[in-house]
């Protein structure tokens, strides 16, 4: 339980820093895709003894590269993502059931195993946090300017790092969140909090801090619910996140109906 809470506390800053970028750049589907693509990596790791984070990051990045290669004039980026995502999930299922027979662990791979987190996983998440913090420290202005005005970021005289720095950071964060939320629920940890607080944020810093704080609160609440009601923790966190998002939507709608410009305009 304490380890699970600690894991959530380590994931919260990732949800803050990268969640803000994900919702502003429209990368939620990419984040979900990397998570799903990590699934076949986890299956292979479980059967062969390769370290799970390395295998997950490997297939996750392979997915990112594949998506980038597939998209073009004839295939929109979201269609390319969907294609690679379905492929990864199918390959994972075939590998798990027919090749390596790791069926019993598939649930954990897909939906997380927050209560079974050990010291190794915590160290892994800490390492991911360090990598993302470094990338964010170096490239945060680049990311912000590119999100605000993608075509003209170059004319501001800043070093253009390219989107790969952000995509890499997201992939690392997704892999770190796999233990807590699993391949299919990472978005609940990394994307939902930022999407929930975004309409109320007035600055980038505010969005990051609020998303990080909400990620921690909804994570702990989900963990507590899972413990009390004997639910799978990943799913409980996703449900709490979904409820918070719905409440945020309702709040936006109410303030819009009241005649204001909505919280974005307040």
């Amino acid at each position, binding site marked *: 339980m304490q380890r699970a809470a600690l894991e959530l506390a380590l994931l919260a800053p990732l949800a803050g820093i990268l969640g803000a970028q994900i919702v502003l750049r429209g990368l939620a589907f990419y984040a979900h895709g990397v998570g799903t693509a990590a699934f076949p990596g986890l299956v292979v790791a479980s059967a062969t003894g390769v370290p799970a984070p390395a295998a997950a990051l490997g297939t996750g990045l392979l997915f990112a590269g594949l998506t980038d290669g597939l998209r073009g004039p004839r295939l929109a980026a979201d269609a390319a993502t969907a294609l690679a995502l379905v492929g990864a999930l199918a390959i994972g299922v075939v590998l798990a059931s027919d090749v390596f027979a790791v069926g019993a662990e598939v649930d954990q791979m897909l939906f997380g195993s927050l209560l079974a987190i050990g010291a190794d996983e915590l160290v892994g998440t800490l390492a991911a946090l360090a990598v993302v913090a470094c990338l964010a420290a170096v*490239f945060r202005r680049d990311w912000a300017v590119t999100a*605000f005005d993608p075509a003209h970021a170059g*004319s501001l*005289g800043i070093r253009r790092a390219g989107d790969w720095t952000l995509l890499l950071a997201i992939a690392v964060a997704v892999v770190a969140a796999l233990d807590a939320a699993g391949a299919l629920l990472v978005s609940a940890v990394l994307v939902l909090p930022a999407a929930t607080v975004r309409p109320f*944020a007035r600055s980038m810093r505010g969005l990051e801090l609020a998303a990080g704080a909400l990620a921690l609160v909804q994570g702990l609440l989900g963990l507590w619910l899972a413990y009390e009601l004997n639910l799978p923790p990943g799913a409980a966190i996703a449900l709490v996140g979904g409820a918070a998002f719905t409440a945020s939507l309702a709040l936006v709608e109410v303030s819009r109906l009241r005649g204001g410009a909505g919280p974005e305009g307040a």
Partner: protein
Amino acid sequence: MDAALRVRGLTAGYVPGVPAIEDVELDIAGGHSLAVLGPNGGGKTTLFRALLGQAPWRRGEIEVRGALAYVPQTERSRLDFPIDALGVALMGRYGTTPWYRRLSRADRRAAHAALERVGLGDHARTPYGELSGGQRQRVLIARALAQEAGVLLLDEPMSGVDRPSADRVLALLAELRDEGRIVLISTHDIDHARRFDGVLCINRTQIACGSPQDVLNAEVLARTYGAELVRLGDGARAIVVQHHTH
């Protein structure tokens, strides 16, 4: 401010060997303004990209004295981005701030001063998305001023802006020019072009460049706009311009 811009035989495009503009010649001293007039797809954007060093392929010479800054169309920037006017102006300081340093007080002062300069000192904390089109355009100009630009390139600064705001932007651009800067705008509005010191007409190649009186005549406009030019009933000409999309 001692800005200068000299362009010789500039040919540029997106694919090597396929020029989007050819043989552009310019010579502008500080304290002068120029309107680049031409149809959509005529090469206005390519010219600016080439000046900024962002054209994928380019031949010819470009000499610039003073920092270049680009002011995009307000319609292109995001209104749902969590940032206020000051935050946008501060982006103009990113280029001179290494990643390991925070923006300094001097940077903040410069951004504030730039907002004051464009008449938006009171709106520093207003979310960018809540500003009017004209105010957003002036915030983006403030961002360029925060870059300490000697040469300003503005992409259709009066588009998406109501008439009084457009006049205000034009007046501001005249002031910035009078301070010794070079102001270049792209436009497809002949009336706006008339209010600049010089006009460059391009349609793939340079059609004419000179004072508005010399350049803005029926013959040059016909060559600039070609088939897009239609004759109105009273014998006057009008320009058919589709909404700019690219």
